[in-house]
């Protein structure tokens, strides 16, 4: 069995492995994890992401991702890709360069977008770039 710490931002076939981690294991990862359900409400939010954003999980969990948590992702580069993937009933595993506004500072990051047909949870993973 894979241990949480063995997983990195670029581990292949990451979606199913993330799904098996519990909240504590998710917190051990050194990259940010935001998982959201079929209604786009946030259902997983790990410590790395929480600390970077300065928001505690209770403020985020259960909130719609693209309007109430990360409106900066509500454009065709991120939100629409998830929508298109859902419409096409296909899988998504793409990594893009992006800038997040963590604590109102522009932070260069890589985003990895993960979705699979039928998966209950889709993910946005966040890693800082130098």
């Amino acid at each position, binding site marked *: 069995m894979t241990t949480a710490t063995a997983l990195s931002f670029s581990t292949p076939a990451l979606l199913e492995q993330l799904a098996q981690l519990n909240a504590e294991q998710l917190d051990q990862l050194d990259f940010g994890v935001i998982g959201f359900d079929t209604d786009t409400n946030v259902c997983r939010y790990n410590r790395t992401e929480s600390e970077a954003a300065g928001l505690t999980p209770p403020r985020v969990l259960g909130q719609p991702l693209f309007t109430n948590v990360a409106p900066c992702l509500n454009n065709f580069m991120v939100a629409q890709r998830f929508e298109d993937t859902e419409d096409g009933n296909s899988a998504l595993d793409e990594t893009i360069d992006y*800038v997040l*506004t963590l604590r*109102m500072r522009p932070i260069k990051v890589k985003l990895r977008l993960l979705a699979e047909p039928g998966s209950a949870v889709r993910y946005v993973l966040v890693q800082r770039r130098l």
Partner: protein
Amino acid sequence: MIDPVNLQAFGADANTHLAAEHEALMQFLYLSPVGLVQTGVDGEILMINPISAQLLMPLQRDGNLLNLFEALEGVAPELRHLCASFARPNGMICDGLQIHLNHPGYAGGGALRPRRSPQVLSLSLLKLDDTRLMAVLSDVSEQVRRERQLRQNDAWLNALLTSITDYALVGLDREGRICDWNETIGRVTGHTDAVVGSSYAVFYPQDAITAEQVHDRLREADQNGWSLDEGARVRADGSQFWGSAMISPIPDAEFDEPDAPAYCLVLRDISDKRDASETRRKSAFCDHLTGVANRRAFFEAAELELQRNRRKPRPTALVLIDADHFKRINDRHGHPGGDAALRQLGLVLTATFRQVDVVARVGGEEFAVLLPSSTLAGAAAVAERLRQLVQSQRVAFDGTHIDFTVSAGVAASEGGDLDLDMLMKRADQALYAAKAGGRNRIECWNSSMSAPVVRSPGPRDA
């Protein structure tokens, strides 16, 4: 005496309270539905909220977002200049400046406009002091659409209600030819009855209306009950005035009689009113540096022309022009030198193209010209003339001179087959080919260019 243990508890409690307060404030900013950015005077981003990133990231080719001026360079090239020339120690630099986004560079290199994309952003810039600016950004696409409708209604009311001293009442046949003579035509335009039989285009300056546009206005009058147009008009002696013209169909016109009046044209001299409306028009529709149309005016005019095109197909051409090695001009002569070159380019463009063509600055050193009723070959010939003129003229600047050249890409729609996005995309591909082919040249679009190219920040950006 206060018990030290209690003091500690009090401190911890205050910290928790402060942390919660801080988090609530942060979330307030995270969720603000308008974009807020604080920058240095050079545009370097110091603080930025999520909506700003949502709006600006699709404009970035390199996936970075470090400088606001650079982030908007492709769509609002005037910002740096606007801030640099703002002399007061603090205050509003621009308030609700409209930035139009449909640009080949948007959406990562010319993809068709994606669903989830704004078309117009509004930007306000406030200078706080010598070191800081605050910017407010929002998506105003929907408001702009509504405003455009209102402006049309306004123009219509103006035409009806403004007190006027005189007007010409002109009967037009189904083809737009003047079919009767009367005194009012002579008073306003100076023409004699010899003008009967001419198209109403005779009231326009040369090159200011095409034969197709003459018909467009008649069709619009058929469809809407009226067609209103304001702009420069010319009298028989060649002198110009600012005119307002309304064409309306005559109900129950005798359709079996080809020469009978089918439309009524009311032409008024509103030169008095012109100054005020021209100033307003200039500030909203002109590029401040070069005096040619800005992106907003360009996209409005181009959309309108292509809409008419779909109703009544005819060729329409688009030329995208880019100053070669512009960065080198800026490096060698500074931004004022670059500005001088762009002003010169604006002048040459205006002098080279027809009055009916829409010449606009659509990016930092990028210009676009829409040519109604022009073929690919026709537009390419004019573009070539422009290229030669620019090459042969030196720009005097600061005791020395600047030599520069331009590259251009030409694309055309044969009928109503292409929309503006597609036309822009093709012209952009042709321009890219001209740059890749060594610059100082014109390329016309051909189908081999539409192969998807992964655009490195190569020749275009040099």
